[in-house]
């Protein structure tokens, strides 16, 4: 078995979100981090490695500096990394990205007992679409919002974290799971891992590497192959602090109704 984990380098939105004049995000002006949900996916894969000794391959589509992030994931314990990077891939939306990543995963090779991991969603786009689209293009079953994973031979049992509870699902491999950050806090890099990470294999897949895959076509990748057009990016207005009303009696309800009435909400 091997685990293939898709990761994305994203702008650190905990700081200032820089927006260019044309309304698109100024990524160069912002610090980058590894997407939180993707780190949870890496952690989930590494826990399976701890238990079974399986190989963990991380794959990311991004500009060449994303190699730094992949080296850090190798320092956490992943075994191999693939950086999917080419000018032709730039400007891809979720549809085009999933075409390219699916082609890259096919190139890595998906075997019968493999599991593909993705983060639930990236903090820059918040679409949660890439993982499920990759699964569709690879024709493998998918489970989203995964919090816990148990591997049993050629199937995995996963616990999905839903808004109002958990759902436990058994799914046959190969499959794709999208992970949530809540229950898989990522481990730190280790000193030994850092010393080894530059010796571990990191392969770059460019357009040439993937161009023969049927998923890769000028009309399905890059800006041209992206049906999504970003109209405008902006920092949302800062919300005011909420108000907490204490008590579960009639007085509290009266106060709540009064407040809502005052603001013309009801």
């Amino acid at each position, binding site marked *: 078995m091997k685990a293939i984990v898709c990761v994305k380098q994203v702008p650190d939105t905990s700081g200032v979100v820089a927006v260019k004049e044309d309304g698109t995000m100024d990524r160069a002006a912002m610090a980058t981090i590894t997407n939180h949900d993707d780190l949870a996916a890496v952690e989930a894969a590494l826990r399976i490695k701890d238990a079974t000794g399986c190989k963990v391959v991380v794959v990311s589509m991004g500009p060449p500096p994303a190699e730094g992030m992949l*080296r*850090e994931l190798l*320092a956490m314990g992943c075994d191999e990394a693939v950086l999917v990077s080419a000018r032709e891939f730039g400007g891809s939306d979720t549809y085009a990205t999933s075409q390219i990543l699916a082609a890259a995963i096919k190139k890595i090779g998906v075997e019968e007992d493999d599991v593909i991991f993705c983060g639930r969603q990236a903090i820059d786009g918040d679409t949660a679409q890439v993982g499920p689209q990759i699964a569709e293009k690879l024709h493998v079953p998918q489970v989203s919002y995964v919090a816990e994973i148990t591997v049993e031979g050629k199937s995995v049992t996963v616990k999905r974290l839903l808004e109002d509870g958990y759902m436990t699902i058994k799914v046959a491999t190969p499959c794709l799971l999208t992970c949530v950050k809540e229950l898989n806090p990522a481990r*730190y*890099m*280790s*000193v*030994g*891992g*850092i*010393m080894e*990470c*530059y010796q571990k294999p990191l392969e770059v897949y460019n357009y040439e590497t993937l161009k023969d895959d049927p998923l890769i076509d000028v009309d399905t990748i890059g800006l041209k192959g992206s049906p999504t057009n970003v109209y405008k990016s902006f920092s949302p207005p800062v919300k005011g602090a909420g108000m907490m009303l204490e008590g579960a009696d009639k007085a509290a309800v009266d106060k709540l109704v009064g407040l809502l009435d005052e603001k013309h909400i009801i």
Partner: protein
Amino acid sequence: MDLHLSKEHEMLRKMYRDFAENEVKPLAEWVDENEAFPEETVKKMAKLGMMGIYFPKEYGGAGADVLSYVMAVEEMSKVCGTTGVIISAHTSLCAAPIFENGTEEQKKKYLPKLCSGEWIGAFGLTEPGAGTDAQGQQTTAVKNENGDWVLNGSKIFITNAGYANVFIIIAITGVSTDKKGRKKKEISSFIVERTDKGFSVGKHEKKMGIRGSSTCELIMEDCVIPGDRLLGKQGKGFSIAMKTLDGGRIGIASQALGLAEGAIEETIKYTKERVQFGRRISQFQNTQFQLADMYAKTEAAKWLVYSAAMKKQNHEPYSMDAAMAKLVAAETASDVTRRCVQLFGGYGYTREYPVERMMRDAKITEIYEGTSEVQRMVISANLGVN
């Protein structure tokens, strides 16, 4: 000459910083207030390879270098001086002398346990009557008829003592007469385990700073250890102890460096928030000049510390470099933390903010593993001024 850190060192710094912020800083106040040895933190650090950073993998180490170790002590000390010295004493004063002087059997027996953090290490040189005057040892080791060593005496102010499993102990093994007919103590070093018969850990010291660090007395009453626990050659104990302290000084210098850097970080943050006379206090030139001076001094100390670490790594003579690094870093830490408390004003004197703890923690760096005066003796001796 390249003053840039390698990619690996940059990555290590990031990891240490994340770890310090998330795991060490939240406990620092509690550790100080309760004189609590952060056992769980030590376990977490060990898991990441931080208890054996620069030892080879074949002995269970992380296979990194001395600079990587220095940066770990520095980053932990930025947020908690106690955590910094735990790594320093364990690594420099116990694992290092075993690695540098031990037989293959000793290295194979002790280093994997020390590097994995299963065992914690300590070093016993200081005695009630032998502090800076380390030659004034009273502890004795006598070989008995079975070939075992029998140790008698006591050690004081031993860092990590309450939690350590293995101790490097310096003791007198005989008296020799030199050419001029003067009597001279023959000093040797030994590896003593906590469970050895006749060995016990005594009184816990209540200290001004690094209050979570376990500082205790060691008592040896007819403590019998096997003959193969002699570390290095018989009679070479004093030299082993001095060389061990040379390495230890780099660790303490890193602790001092981290304390100064941590205090500056806290003070920059505070002076940008605190408003007096209608202005942020960072807008006053006194604040700006104070912080500029402090930062410049601390950076100067940093390069002395890193340079000593690189020389040790490259097997160049580094005794004088370590002494200079410790002297400058320790005096900088004391000065900087004191000035930071001043910039915080009344709040700086309270335990609500970490700078008063940092000021208390900094003072010891001018004292242990050779006082600043001893460092001056080492430096001047290297200059041939006598």
